[in-house]
């Protein structure tokens, strides 16, 4: 089906109807997504597509960063970072504190000018088209920037004004977003009365007020309790399933593995690796990881002689294994005195392997 032709309004809907020559056909457009329903031989079918972006800018990428650098005096915060984010993709920027994640996204949403490089959002240049770009982005900053002088509802309505939303639409969106974050009953509450989890949900709702095509989240769940964190994840997953493009920074590997289709791990302002979370795990760590606490000296010698990849943490040794079970058998029988665990390799193993175990800052 040539749905990209139906991206316009009105007329094309009719042409489309004729093109498939059905008994009954209906199409609706919601923001970027078009859904076409039809009724044929007693069966209701539908198809949806989001051709808006492609039609508008002639690109597939929402973000194109090329060799982006940012220096603050002597200090280089971002040192030549390049990556692309596709439409509908959920892309993660991972890295320890001070790796340059926040600086990178601040350049993307036009908060801070880059020192050198090229940065395009929606195919537009951030230097010149920042206003049009910003109008289509929703941002959750790391620091709480909710307006404590305003109520929950007013926070959304006032923010809608910054995006030029007409009053009626602002009220309507506020209502539906409060519903989305399950906070209708708290609409008149003061922001300062809210718990950390509720505040974060409100920040997310506020970032959605302009119905953005790209959502940028800077450590969306840092400092939240597990319940609130899962709440936030559920909301973000729902947005993701609606086809929203998401760029997020985090240093929670569980979060990255759950939410990101693709990610980069950055450290000291540079990208170390890029890929899909499972691929990265497979490539850099393997399928399984074995942890042996209080390892005997013989184990270390044996691991070295077998040419296995391992990490020695003193009281604990981590062996990365491609063929886990067999190795586990051997090691647990021959060398294990203390605890000996075989577990699936995670993104956290990749992260620690690549960025090291030293404390930051």
């Amino acid at each position, binding site marked *: 089906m040539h749905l990209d032709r139906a991206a316009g309004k009105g007329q094309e809907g009719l042409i489309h109807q004729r093109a498939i020559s059905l008994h009954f056909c209906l199409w609706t457009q919601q923001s970027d997504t078009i859904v076409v329903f039809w009724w044929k031989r007693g069966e209701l079918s539908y198809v949806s597509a989001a051709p808006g972006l492609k039609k508008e800018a002639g690109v597939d990428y929402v973000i194109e960063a090329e060799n982006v650098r940012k220096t603050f005096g002597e200090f280089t915060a971002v040192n030549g970072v390049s990556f692309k984010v596709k439409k509908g993709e959920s892309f993660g920027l991972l890295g320890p504190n001070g790796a340059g994640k926040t600086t990178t996204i601040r350049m993307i949403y036009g908060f801070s*000018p880059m020192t050198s490089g090229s940065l395009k959002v929606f195919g537009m240049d951030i230097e010149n088209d920042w206003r049009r770009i910003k109008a289509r982005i929703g941002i959750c900053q790391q620091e709480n920037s909710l307006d404590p002088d305003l109520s929950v509802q007013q926070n959304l309505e006032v923010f809608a004004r910054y995006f030029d939303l007409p009053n009626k639409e602002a009220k309507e969106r506020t209502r539906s977003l409060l519903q989305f974050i399950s906070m209708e009953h708290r609409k008149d509450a003061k922001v300062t009365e809210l718990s950390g989890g509720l505040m974060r949900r409100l920040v997310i709702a506020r970032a959605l007020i302009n119905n953005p095509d790209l959502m940028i989240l800077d450590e969306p769940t840092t400092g939240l309790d597990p319940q609130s964190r899962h709440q936030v994840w559920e909301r973000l997953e729902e947005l993701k399933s609606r086809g929203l493009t998401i760029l997020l920074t985090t240093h929670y590997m569980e979060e990255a593995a759950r939410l990101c289709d693709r990610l980069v791990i950055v450290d000291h302002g540079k990208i170390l690796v890029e890929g899909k979370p499972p691929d990265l795990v497979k490539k850099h760590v393997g399928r399984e990881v074995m942890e042996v606490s209080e390892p005997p000296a013989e184990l270390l010698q044996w691991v070295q002689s077998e040419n296995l990849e391992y990490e020695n943490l003193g009281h604990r040794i981590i062996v990365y294994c491609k063929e886990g079970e067999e190795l586990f058998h051997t090691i647990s029988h021959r060398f294990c005195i203390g605890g000996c665990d075989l577990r699936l390799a995670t993104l956290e193993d990749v992260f620690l392997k690549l960025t090291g175990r030293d404390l930051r800052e």
Partner: protein
Amino acid sequence: MRSSVISGRFIKVWQRNFTVYQKIWKINFIPPLLEPLFYLFAFGTGLGALVGSIVYRGSTVSYIGYIAPALIGINMMYNSFFETTYASFVRMYYQKTFDAMLATPLSIHEIITGEIVWGATKSVFATAIMLLVISFFGIIHYPAALSLLPLAFIGGMAFGSVGMFFTSVMPSIDSFNLPIFLFITPMFLFSGTFFPLENLPMWAQKVAFVFPLTHLVKMTRALSLGYVETGLLLDLVYLLIFSAIFFPLALHRMRKRLIK
């Protein structure tokens, strides 16, 4: 990045502050309502009994009649200056309001312009309330005194701009004590507010001439007492020049402070 553009969007920032003002309007109304009463009672009744009357432009005026218009001028200064210093600093530094706005299609210059124009607007509101209260004393000459409302806006822009300039350079909120002690307090006392400038030694008169409040009070007094003269235009021009210097300076410094 060309975030230095200013469009009519600054009004959104103004609206945000107006929304908050409406929420706490009762508190906002009390100071301009009571302040003139306090001052007039202390200075007019208490001190006025000693001073008696003052000769102003060849005719005698009661001491209350002399200082009441000056209080209006001082109030114009206070409302805009304190709005763009303490209040703006709190929004910028503690509440991260500007950071949030910078994530929207607003430019930094629009945000700061909205703040300064809001400060000037607050001056107008306060002047209207104060004028109403003082009118009951039968000192104010209408319709000339109605020109105090647009004047409050112009004076508000001047003091709001210089206030925002201080906000852009102050490391912490406590630092505002310095400009208040060195700039606001001397103006409050020596701008021809409570006694005629001519009573000061010549050098002090020259210093006072630089103070924007001197010119503002000169206008509020003349207009309140019904003297509409072309000579006042010079004072107006002084305030406009003062704004023309500090408004762009405040924008420039704030951009430097916030955009990194």
